[in-house]
Structures are given as C-alpha cells and as structure tokens.
C-alpha cells in the first residue's frame, strides 16, 4: 500500500464530527496553555493525559496533538502583543513581532506568524508522510559527536550573525550556560553548583528565566517610559489578512530556508527553540532589509515562526519511528503512547497502521483547524491591548507569578522570577542581549553531555569530530558560521582588490 492510500484511509478515519470536535477543543485548550507563560505545551499535554485513558488511542492522540499545535500557535500571540513569550520556542518571535505591534501592525504580525507557522508545519507533516522510514534510517546515523556538532552549529550560527556588543553577549551567554549546568550532571552522576541547597537540585528552569526577563522586565521598562501598551489601533479585518497574504510570497526564500532549518533541528534533536533562533539569525544575515531587523521587520517574524513549527512537527518523526522524543512535548506524548499500550519504534507503522495514519491525517487537518481558530480569536486577544494599563499590568504579573510557580510548584521560582525581572530591566537598559542567555540555557547541558559522551567514545581524542563525513561536515559548517563575518569581510576585500585592479587596467 502506498503512503498516499494510507493517508486517505487515515483521513476517512478521522473525518467524523466527534473527531473534528475533539480537534477544536484540543486547539482551544492549546492556545490557552500557550498564551499562559510557564504553563507550556508539555505541562498541558501531561495534564490532559489522564483524560485520555478512557478514549481510543486515535481520539486521544488527536486531542493531544491538536493541543500541541494550539500551544505552538498560542505561544506567538503573547510574544507579539506583550513581548512575553508564552513558550521558550517563541522567544525569537518577540524580536520583530513586538516592535511591529508597537507600531500598530500587530494584526499584520499575527497573520504573518500564523500563516508561516501553518506552512512550516505542513512541510513537517509532508516529511512524516512520505519520507519517514528513510529519515528514521538517517537519524540512526547520529551519535553523540553528531549531536554535539548540531548544537555547535546552532550556537555558532547565532553568535556569528549577532550584532550585539561581544563582551555583553559573552556575559549573557555564560549566565545561560551556568544556569544549564546547575543540578545533576548526566555524565558523572554528580551534583554541580548546588551548594548543598535543595532548591537548586532540579536546576534553574529557563521557563522561569524567560518569564522574568521578558514578562516582568518588559513591564518595568514600560512603566519607566511612562507608557501604556499602545495597541489601540489593532483591528484585524479580512482586509488586513488578505493584504498580509499578498505580501508574503516575496519571502519565499526565507520561508524555504526556515523550513529546512526547522525540519533539520526537529529530526536531529536540536528542538524548536534552537531552530527558531538559528532561522532568525540566518534570515537576518541574508536579508536585503538587514538593517530593519529588530525594528519590526515582517521577515523577522516569518523566519522563526516557520522554523518553530516545522521543527515542532518533525520532532514527532523520531518519536514515532525510533521512540526518542525530539522535544519536551513529544516526550510526554511518548509516555502517553506507552500507557495506551503502543510501543513506538520501527514496528509502529506496520503494527498500528490505523493509529499512525489517523495521527498523520489529523496533523494536516489539525493545523488547518488551528489556523482558523487562531485567526478567529485574534480580535479577542487584540482587544486585551485596549484594557487600561492599571488593570492589565497586575493581571499579567499575576499570570507570570502563577506561571513561574507552576513550573516546579515552588515559591522559590517565583522569587527567582523577580530577580530575573530586575536583571531583564537592567539588561535592556544597558544593551545586554537576552537571546544568547535563553539559547545557552536551553541547549547548554545537552551540548556538554554530547561533548563528554564523545570523549568517552574516543578516549579523549578531539579528532572524533572529524571522524566521518557527516560529523566532519557539520563541525566544519559550524566553524564557518562562527567566523562568517570575518570570512565575508575577506571575500569582500578580495572582491574590492580585484575590482580595483580591473578598474586600473581598464583605461
């Protein structure tokens, strides 16, 4: 049976009013979870799990996966409107989405974000539909050195393309790395940097850091400027949507590049957060409007959103075919699969034909349903901006506090949120970039584990990072990206030299 026939079979399985209803419920719950900081998609899916024990596996996975899509979409809403990322993976969306909202172009930013998200997700699903077995075989080639090279590539792309003052970037990034190092070290099994304090055992969660740095930091900056949220002009009308859609095709190259980055990072477990950062940096590097990035450039919204969603979707591929989750949410769903009596892995596609194809079919439909639902709720969210500051600010702070609390159910995290809030305020005022901190906190310990596992493989030889074409290519690409500014300058200088010679020779 071809993939296409299986897909059609899956479609007919899920095209029932009951399942479509479940999709809408899942998406709505997901948007709610995505909008509330701290209560991310992994928590939401984990909390819904008990409900699914009595359902059939197909219905259950439709509910959970649609909640995932909803959360991915919802995370970008608050990023754009309030500069508070609902999910770590939508941090990169704030860079240009929020400036756009402040210029009164929130509706345009939201439309672009949602649309590119849908397109990114659809490519991820197409991969899953037609290439899953080949990609699974490819993913098996990956071991610790390859993982490290992938993380290195993400870091180097981001640093090489960064325009912030280097010293402050280093400080910010090192704080992120230090946060990631706190707690149990996988390779040695020792506790690190905990200073015998029980509240440091589980490490410092970057969700709390994101809530504080962005949420509380932003509110402090806003009151200092004596401003209120300026969103009075937000009106989403079919006209705005159509106008934005008309603009989008000209960014096809950005979109294509972001999709590739997203799928790549989703399959190799870099994850959606790294994908969105990397894709944003690349878009800035290769855009014609480079100077406008960070000041409200539409392309700066399209790039991270596309990559975020294609990574989020393709993260399900290694989960289904190999049983290793590509993202935190996928890890929770994996637990769900086991409880429903399914063993993810190479045999899932043949043994649980209906389940797998029902899921894949629901991914197509679920993403389209998400787009419709989310566009329909934009006026609602936009109207939040019209609420007076003295009402919305304390409510945002309350939601941030609850969000920080719910990450680990600990009051200590709420206190940490305050510290990060003050730090976020100072960082913004003094020109320290926050993004490197988030990226380092998300990837830092994974990169370190992969590096040290590689050293165990090679008895401490660094040559292992060039031991085969795959890992060698990745490592070399990473170094190229890191020194890209230098290389670019060199090429330019060469070009000038040649040009000058030609000019001299001409007359």
């Amino acid at each position, binding site marked *: 049976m071809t993939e296409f026939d299986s897909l059609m079979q899956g479609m007919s399985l899920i095209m029932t009013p009951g399942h479509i209803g479940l999709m809408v419920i899942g998406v709505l719950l997901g948007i*709610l*979870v995505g909008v509330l900081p701290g*209560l991310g998609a992994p*928590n*939401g899916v984990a*909390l819904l799990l008990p409900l699914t024990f009595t359902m059939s596996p197909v219905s259950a996975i439709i509910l959970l996966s649609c909640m995932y899509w909803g959360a991915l979409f919802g995370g970008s809403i608050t990023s754009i409107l309030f500069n508070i990322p609902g999910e770590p993976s939508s941090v990169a969306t704030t860079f240009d989405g929020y400036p756009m909202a402040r210029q009164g172009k929130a509706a345009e930013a939201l439309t672009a974000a949602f649309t590119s998200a849908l397109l990114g997700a659809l490519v991820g699903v197409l991969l899953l539909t037609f290439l899953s077995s080949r990609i699974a075989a490819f993913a098996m080639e990956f071991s610790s050195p390859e993982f490290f090279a992938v993380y290195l590539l993400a870091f180097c792309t981001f640093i090489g393309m960064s325009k912030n003052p280097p*010293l*402050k970037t*280093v*400080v910010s990034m*090192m*704080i992120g*790395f*230090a946060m990631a*190092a706190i707690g149990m*070290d996988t*390779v*040695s099994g*020792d506790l*690190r*940097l*905990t*200073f015998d304090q029980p509240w440091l055992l589980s490490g410092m969660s970057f969700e709390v850091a994101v809530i504080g740095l962005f949420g*509380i930091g932003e509110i*402090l900056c806003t*009151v*200092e*400027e*004596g401003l209120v949220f300026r969103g009075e002009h937000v009106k989403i009308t079919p006209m705005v949507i159509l106008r934005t859609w008309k603009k989008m095709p000209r960014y096809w190259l950005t979109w294509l590049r972001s999709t590739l980055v997203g799928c790549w990072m989703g399959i190799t477990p870099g994850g959606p957060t790294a994908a969105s950062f990397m894709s944003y940096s690349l878009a800035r590097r290769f855009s014609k409007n480079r100077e406008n990035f960070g000041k409200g450039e539409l392309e700066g919204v399209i790039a991270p959103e596309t990559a975020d969603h294609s990574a989020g979707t393709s993260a399900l591929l290694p989960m289904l075919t190999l049983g290793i989750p590509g993202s935190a949410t996928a890890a929770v769903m994996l637990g769900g699969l086991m409880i429903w009596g399914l063993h993810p892995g190479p045999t899932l596609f043949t043994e649980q034909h209906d389940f797998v194809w029902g899921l894949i079919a629901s991914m197509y439909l679920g993403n389209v349903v998400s787009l419709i639902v989310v566009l329909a709720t934009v006026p609602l969210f936009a109207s939040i901006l019209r609420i*007076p500051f*003295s*009402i919305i*600010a*304390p*409510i945002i*702070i*309350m939601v941030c*506090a*609850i969000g920080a*609390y*719910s990450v680990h*159910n600990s009051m200590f995290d*709420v*206190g940490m*949120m*305050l510290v990060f*809030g*003050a730090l976020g*305020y*100072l960082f913004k*005022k*003094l020109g320290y970039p926050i993004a490197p901190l988030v990226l380092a906190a998300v990837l830092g310990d994974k990169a*370190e584990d992969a*590096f*040290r596992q*590689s*050293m*165990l493989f090679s*008895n*401490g030889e660094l040559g292992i990072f060039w031991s085969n074409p795959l890992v060698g290519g990745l490592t070399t690409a990473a170094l190229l990206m890191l020194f890209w500014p230098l290389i670019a300058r060199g090429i330019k200088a060469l070009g000038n030299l040649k040009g000058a010679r030609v000019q001299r020779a001409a007359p």
Partner: protein
Amino acid sequence: MSTSTSALVGTRWVELGLALFTAALGGVVMYGSASSGIGWDDAGPQAGYFPFYIGLLMSAASLTTVLITFLQWRRLSEAFVSREAFNRVLKVFVPIVLFVASMPLIGLYLASAGFIAWFMWRDRQRPQPYGWMTIVAVAGGAALASYLIFALWFKVPLDAGPLGDLAALARRMLK
C-alpha cells in the same frame, strides 16, 4: 521641575554595578565547580571543567566591561534614569515584591486579588478613578478565573493559603 527630572544615577555607576555583579557571579560559579574537578582526565573533561571556564569567561568579560566603563567614564555620564522615571518603576516593582512575599503567607488568590485591587486603586492618572465596585469585580474575577483555569481545569495545585484550609474544613463539615 528641576528636581523631578534630575538624574538619579549616572549610567556609568549602573554599568559598573551590573558588571561587578556578574563578575562576582562568575566567581561563585568557579568556586562551585572547583569541587567537582576542573581537569581533563583520560575520560574527557571532568564534571567541573566546563562550568569552571564558563565562570572564568563570565568574570573576565565582566571585568573587561568594568575597564571599558572606566575608560569611557566621561562619555557614560548621562543619566541612567531620571528620578521621576525611577519613582514610576519603584511604584510598580515594590508592590510586585510585596505581592510575591505575601503569596506564601496568605495564599495566592488573596494576594493576587489584593495586588490587582491596589494597582487599580492607585491609578490616579485617570480622569475618573475606578469605583470600588469595579475594583472588587475585577480583582475577585481575576482570582476566580485563575482558580478555575489553573486549579480546577489544569490541576495545578496552587497554594490557596487560609482560603484552602477554609474550603477543606467546609467540606469536612458537610460530610
């Protein structure tokens, strides 16, 4: 007029303070990782290797920032924040601190409701201050909504404080 817009503190001092803070943080990280072994043995780097250099880099970069601040001492003399603006920030930040501090004592719902109510009551910039009915409705409504969404719907056990004890007692009495 001159007092309300006067500079509270120069940027250079804040720059200096933050850089010294991160330098100290780097020192703490280095100290903490020293106990896990910072060397490189035959099985690759030890547990404290990376954290140690992370701390070292953090301190070094911060101290360089300190140095640059001194070099540009005059150029960085402009005001970091005006007295008036800083007052505005404090007027928000101090209540947040109080809000967070009161959460473990009186529970999340009461603290949130009180915090929102205080914020609304304080807002005198409006031509028409909020009536107490509006304040109670919004503050209570927000607390109720957070109960419904978080505690009831998503089963995040929020600390309800005395309210929770009350509810448990009421339930026991009903039984």
